């Protein structure tokens, strides 16, 4: 199995006919994702790359069972698109878009909490389980296996997944929480799911400076039965500077690399100083 979605999941894409939507629809199909419907206002009733199009999420949901939606929607319109998906009852909503106003993020994330929907992102590569990719991570950066991965950043995740795949270790699910100030899901949310997933034998946490998500994760890791390997980026980052991600900033002495590492280490997580060490540690743990 896997977390949140699996090879049986039926997927909707909002913003399916745009340049990005189209490109990643094809990539997702090539991965094996069952994309059953797309929303493209003004094009309802049509078909795009073999996928039926609808005017709204509500209309798509009247015609299909939808387990998850992926949004390829410009930042200015994301709030409305996400609220519609939540209201239509979709339980897993992946928001790829970066630079959504933080006030809009607050509304999306709190509405989802109220309605019991899981938001992945915003500002994420998305997530993948075997034969179900929701987002933009390269198809090659995934192979099926026993390791769960939850991360705040994309390329770094591909790097680590790539090094795992190189030594023959695959993944149950790979989840990108996104780099924004108000992420829909946290490390703890995903660690709980991996802990409960019978096929996941170990979890890799890819964090970075800023915020306190890693510290919260450490509290939960204390209670986990499965081993966790953590790699964090930003050891060399100066305070007060945003390192690419809106959330990657050391503010008022909080969110430092050292503080996070100490918390994770104290919780029993194994620490990788370099990204390439993750695969070595996982090999040891699974041996």
């Amino acid at each position: 199995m896997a977390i949140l979605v699996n090879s049986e999941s039926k997927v909707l894409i909002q913003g399916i006919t745009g340049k990005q939507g189209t490109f990643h629809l094809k990539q997702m199909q090539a991965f094996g994702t069952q994309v059953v419907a797309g929303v493209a206002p003004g094009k309802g009733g049509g078909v795009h790359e073999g996928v039926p199009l609808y005017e709204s999420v509500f209309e798509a949901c009247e015609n299909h069972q939808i387990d998850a939606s992926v949004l390829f929607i410009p930042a200015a319109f994301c709030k409305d698109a996400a609220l519609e998906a939540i209201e239509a009852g979709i339980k897993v909503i992946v928001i790829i878009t970066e630079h959504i106003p933080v006030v809009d993020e607050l509304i999306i994330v709190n509405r989802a909490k109220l309605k019991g929907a899981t938001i992945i992102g915003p500002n994420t590569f998305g997530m993948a389980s075997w034969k179900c990719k929701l987002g933009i991570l390269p198809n090659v950066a995934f192979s099926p296996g026993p390791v769960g991965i939850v991360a705040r950043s994309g390329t770094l995740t591909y790097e680590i997944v790539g090094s795992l795949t190189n030594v023959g270790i695959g993944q149950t699910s790979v989840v990108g929480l996104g780099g924004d100030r108000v992420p829909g899901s946290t490390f703890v949310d995903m660690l709980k799911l991996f802990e409960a997933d019978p096929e996941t034998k170990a979890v890799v946490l890819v964090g970075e400076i800023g915020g306190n998500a890693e510290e919260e994760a450490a509290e939960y890791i204390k209670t986990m039965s499965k081993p966790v390997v953590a790699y964090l980026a930003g050891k060399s980052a100066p305070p007060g500077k945003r390192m690419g991600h809106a959330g990657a900033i050391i503010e008022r002495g909080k969110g430092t690399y050292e503080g996070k590492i100490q918390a994770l280490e104290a919780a029993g997580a194994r620490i990788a100083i370099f990204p390439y060490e993750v695969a070595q540690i996982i090999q040891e743990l699974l041996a």
Partner: protein
Amino acid sequence: MLLYHHIQMNDEHLRWDNINPQIILREGQIYNVKCFEYMGKEIFADYGIPVPQGRMVTTPEAAEQVAAEIGKSVVIKSQVLSGKRGKGGGIKFSDTPAGARTAAEEILAMTVQGHQVKCLLVEEKLRIEHELYVAITIDGAAKAPVLITSAKGGMDIEEQAEEDIVKVHLDVFLGLQPYLAKDLARRIGLKGAQAKAYADIVQKMYKIMIERDAELVEINPLVLSGDQVIAADAKVTIDDSALFRHKELTIVDEDKTEIEKLAQAAGVGSFVELGGDIAIMANGAGITMGTLDMIQLFGGSPANFMDAGGGTGVEGTAKAIGILLEQKPKVIFINIFGGITRCDDVANALAYVKKNIGIPVPVVVRMVGTNEEAGVQILREVGIDAYREMKEAAQKAVELSKVGGVA
């Protein structure tokens, strides 16, 4: 003429078929737009939050005129983004218009905390009975706005004792309701007309946060003067992601360095100057941070953080390399894990810059992923060998930075 201005390529060189929506949907790269005090006070005035009578000026003559209009003692405040302006002499008082002129002359000639003073705020000097602190910001971990207030204003909130601070998370669907505003006033010891005025102000601050997309609305100090409660200072930071719906805003970018401004003008993804001698480009915020960490752990000194993003294409990457060159590093280190970013695009950009502009320092490239073989071949043709392992490449870059030798 700057190097990156030379980098203009034909459309046929650009391939936009592999596009990262995160790049395309991007509005800009200026995170959190900070407002000068006078701008914050203009917003406050729009919403009916009491502010001292006064005006922004840029000349000593105008300062004198505004002081004469006010007709009583004034304060002349430098408009720079750093706090602690008073300690650097950036705030002066005067009892006469002529004195205001002299004070303005002095402050306009000053550099406050590294910032050249370009404008001043001249306003009435308040009769201060007591100073409070109040701020509304966003707590990402709690996924909620948070209001922080204290009966002890005038100093940094970080310097205050935990027991003096009142902190309340707000429900984004309810906002800041009157009952809560009144209770906050009670909790910091206000009564009567002052409590009423305070409750009114915090509700207006919340409204500003939501309607103007402010990440931070801070008043420190909020001054008690008779029955009046007045915002003696204003710190408003606008969420840059929301700028598309606030075209009226003036952008203040004085906390960026010259090279950071260049990078922004060149449309390069996120860039932070760090001051070392190894110029770095990678694709993705996380892997860029990871690259800097590795360079530092191996004993090297990164010149910058540069997330060139994903799917930036040949021209964008060439411009980014131009920015790296502007820093006059000892070594350039490029670390690409090609997903949406194509190795051949990066290689073509490097080859283009090398042939047309010249790269006077060693270039170390680590390149794996999409179109790797093509990228490696293109680089080989211009005499650059690419590494596959990040570790070996980082070690080589550090080694070259020590000897300043050749690749």
